[in-house]
């Protein structure tokens, strides 16, 4: 490729960043591109920022499309599409050396020719107005840009139009017509001195692929797991799950309630659980704080519920539309008393589906609360992956209202509790009372010191049993060596990619990702012992003693001084570069 012309490192991969204002509809065109990638057997991961105010403001949508595995949204962009001067000024730095900047020449007046970046000014606004007609002003310029990108990257135009039509099809006919006018104008626009590209064909296997975000996959997973009831209170970035459940569950004969607050929501959910259903509540950090008293009750009363925390930046109202993993300790220990509960974290969008299924199974099996720690990044980013096979994963909801045997006890010391919901007859004639007071095996309040110790042990046993059944996670990369990078939650992709890049520096690097956060699976120490350094990467603070929340737990659990932390609290997902240099520092002994 001739110098001066845009030469992406590989057309197996491209990162496109759209920078504009939230009203410009860049989220929707980013979504179209992500969906197209999924449909054309490519991998994709997106990343967006949304202003936390309703009136809008600067916003970006970044799409990383690749023909091989795509594990992150891209550290730097290959192409920047700038809608305004402020978008240009804020994001030019995110464009790689020699990248391409397409900008609205009607808005961006000052460009900086630097780092071999190729600038192409196109009047997005004026060309859109001309194509669609004056009355709509500049609405539709996102579609103009989509047409432009479609042409530049040789995307499958027919499929793309299909996706767009389906989206707009629900609206007024004229909306689709105008959108297509703008799209065609962009597609036909003569960009001049710019090479056209084509992605290599993807390698994804047989079967259908879908593209969506983490909140949608959690919702689908919950329904597949047999959840039909629950309640919640709106909060970003959890709301879209409750909105979907509210709209979807009636189709399945269920009800999702908008409660007056989060403690009411978890209480209603516990009511449904007591009534014999698998039920879910959820929120973000502030709401989880409110739910804590009832979650302690759920451990004591041994009621099965799923609780989702889509984490955002804290403390307090914090950063509502940013990502953080600072609610781990709260998830495990946030309630009063010794109250065992299971904590899981999905590693990517696809995993949101399977983690919800697993949460449902564990809640029922151990009759205890199961918390799912998702986060803002997972909630909103789009990925493409194989469509789950419902013939394999579907769980039919059911309530066991069989008549209970003569010797039924709600809290047997020698077995895991399985409640008899209302409607179940008792052969003994004695009906159970579910209790938050310490109780004996029949649920009668008991202050006996011996009973409290025994019941605490009975509840603790669930965690011991769960730890024994959790699979030991597989190490990616070197199975022993210089450093093991440990992560949990949405950092899975960037950590894996970083582990692949570090050996280039001559290190033996492995990556381990935890999905079961509490209890931890048995046997992790045997993995930890095989590495010189263990670096736990998390999006939370080093705290008073220099360790992030998971690192603190792992150090306490394994007493292994090799365990160190790589933390950050800027509210943004980890970049590959940050992990690579952070781990290198540890290797150099400077961490």
């Amino acid at each position: 490729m001739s110098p001066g012309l845009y030469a992406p490192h590989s057309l197996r991969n491209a990162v496109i960043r759209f920078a504009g204002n939230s009203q410009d509809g860049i989220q929707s065109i980013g979504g179209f591109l992500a969906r197209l990638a999924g449909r054309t057997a490519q991998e994709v991961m997106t990343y967006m920022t949304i202003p936390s105010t309703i009136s809008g403001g600067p916003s970006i949508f970044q799409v990383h499309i690749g023909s091989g595995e795509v594990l992150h949204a891209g550290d730097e962009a290959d192409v920047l599409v700038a809608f305004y001067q402020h978008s240009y000024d804020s994001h030019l730095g995110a464009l790689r050396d020699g990248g391409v900047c397409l900008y609205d020449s009607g808005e961006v007046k000052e460009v900086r020719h630097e780092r071999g970046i190729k600038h192409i000014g196109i009047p997005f606004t004026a060309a859109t107005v001309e194509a669609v007609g004056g009355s709509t002003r500049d609405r539709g310029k996102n579609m103009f840009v989509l047409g432009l990108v479609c042409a530049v990257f040789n995307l499958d135009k027919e499929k793309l139009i299909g996706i767009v039509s389906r989206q707009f099809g629900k609206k007024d006919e004229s909306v689709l017509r105008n959108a297509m006018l703008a799209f065609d104008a962009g597609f036909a626009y003569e960009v001049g001195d710019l090479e056209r590209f084509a992605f290599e064909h993807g390698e994804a296997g047989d079967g259908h692929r879908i593209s969506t975000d983490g909140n949608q996959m959690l919702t689908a997973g919950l329904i597949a797991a047999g959840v039909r009831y629950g309640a919640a209170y709106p909060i970003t970035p959890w709301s879209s799950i409750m909105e979907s459940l509210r709209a979807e569950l009636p189709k399945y004969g269920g009800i999702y309630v908008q409660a007056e607050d989060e403690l009411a929501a978890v209480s209603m959910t516990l009511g449904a659980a007591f009534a014999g259903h698998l039920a879910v509540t959820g929120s973000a950090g502030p709401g989880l704080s409110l739910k804590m008293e009832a979650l302690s009750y759920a451990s004591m009363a041994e009621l099965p519920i799923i609780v989702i925390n889509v984490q955002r930046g804290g403390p307090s109202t914090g950063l509502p539309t940013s990502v953080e993993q600072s609610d781990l300790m709260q998830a495990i220990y946030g309630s009063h008393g010794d109250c065992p509960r299971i904590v899981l974290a999905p590693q990517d969008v696809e995993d949101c589906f399977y983690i919800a299924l697993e949460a449902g199974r564990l809640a029922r099996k151990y009759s205890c609360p199961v918390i799912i720690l998702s986060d803002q990044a997972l909630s909103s980013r789009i990925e493409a992956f194989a469509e789950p096979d419902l013939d394999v994963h579907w769980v039919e909801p059911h309530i066991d209202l069989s008549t209970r045997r003569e010797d039924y006890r709600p809290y047997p010391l020698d077995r895991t509790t399985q409640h008899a919901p209302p409607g179940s007859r008792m052969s003994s004639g004695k009906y159970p009372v579910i209790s938050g007071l310490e109780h004996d095996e029949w649920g009668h309040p008991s202050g006996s010191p011996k009973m409290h110790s025994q019941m605490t042990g009975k509840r603790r046993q669930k965690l011991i049993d769960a730890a024994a059944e959790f699979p030991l996670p597989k190490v990616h990369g070197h199975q022993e060596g210089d450093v093991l990078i440990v992560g949990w939650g949405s950092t899975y992709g960037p950590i894996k990619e970083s582990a692949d890049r570090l050996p280039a520096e001559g290190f033996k690097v492995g990556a381990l990702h935890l999905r079961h956060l509490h209890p931890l699976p048995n046997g992790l120490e045997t993995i930890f012992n095989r590495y010189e350094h263990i670096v736990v990467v998390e999006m939370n603070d080093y705290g008073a003693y220099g360790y992030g929340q998971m690192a603190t737990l792992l150090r306490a659990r394994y007493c292994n001084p090799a365990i160190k932390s790589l933390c950050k609290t800027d509210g943004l997902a980890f970049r590959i570069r940050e992990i690579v240099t952070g781990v290198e520092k540890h290797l150099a002994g400077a961490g």
Partner: protein
Amino acid sequence: MSTVLPSATVTEPEDRLTKKALTADHPTWCPGCGDFAVLNIFYRVLEKLQYPHEKIVCVAGIGCSSRFPYFMNTHGIHFIHGRALPLATGISLSRPDVHVFVFGGDGDGFSIGGNHLNHAARKNVKLTYVIMDNFVYGLTKKQTSPTSPIGFKSKTDPTGSVDRPINPMKQLLASGATFIARTHAAQVKHMEQVFERAILHDGFSVVECLSECVMFYAGAFDDSTPRKGGTFETVDETQHDVTDEGAAFKLAENLAPGKFGVYYQVQRPTKNDLEQKWITETQAKIGGASQKDLLRKRLEAMR
């Protein structure tokens, strides 16, 4: 129809539901506590109504009065302070086949649980709620409650309480409850009639039952106890139209000691019915697709 909601299980006729069958642990209340009478009358009303034993559910928060579920041999749940109503909401909405009864005190209902009361009432969730009002915090040993009169000397107001108490009837009227009544634990016949009407009401029915705490507020209700020289005056429903909200507010103006009986009763669709209606309409629209196919279609739309 939903496949999740258990259709009323066909049950062979059981023995008559008797007080004996309904009795569980001996109450831990202080001798003379007003709550004993409430429990006894509740047994009696259930004996009369003869609901299937396994379909009766007793729910409570925390307080002396909230110990109620332990003393009832029915499915029961003793929850946390102030949150019994949302818990009961979850049961009622997800199990239309069971009868949900909620018990609690004035602190549990009007203070820590006050906002839940407003919302369960306005949503008209199908259940019956009995507030055993003793004008004091009993379980925690004599602190001021939201119904304690001004001047009441408690451990948190040693020189007499200064905060204006709430007016339970006005509060409940404003909340949107569809059945609101007031009764007295020392008037067992009256209590029985009121409970029965409350339970038979199709919607959110709430009863404030004055129930003396002999330990920490003895004599609180002497002014409405004839054998202590008070007057027990009942609502005359030939004069008071229970569907007239304005009249009910008027009736609630003076509750010292005020009148006893049904203040307000109207029919409004319950949340249970409205949600079920939505389910039925939604399911009719999508035809006979299986639940698994429904989710499959949703996933296919993401292709």
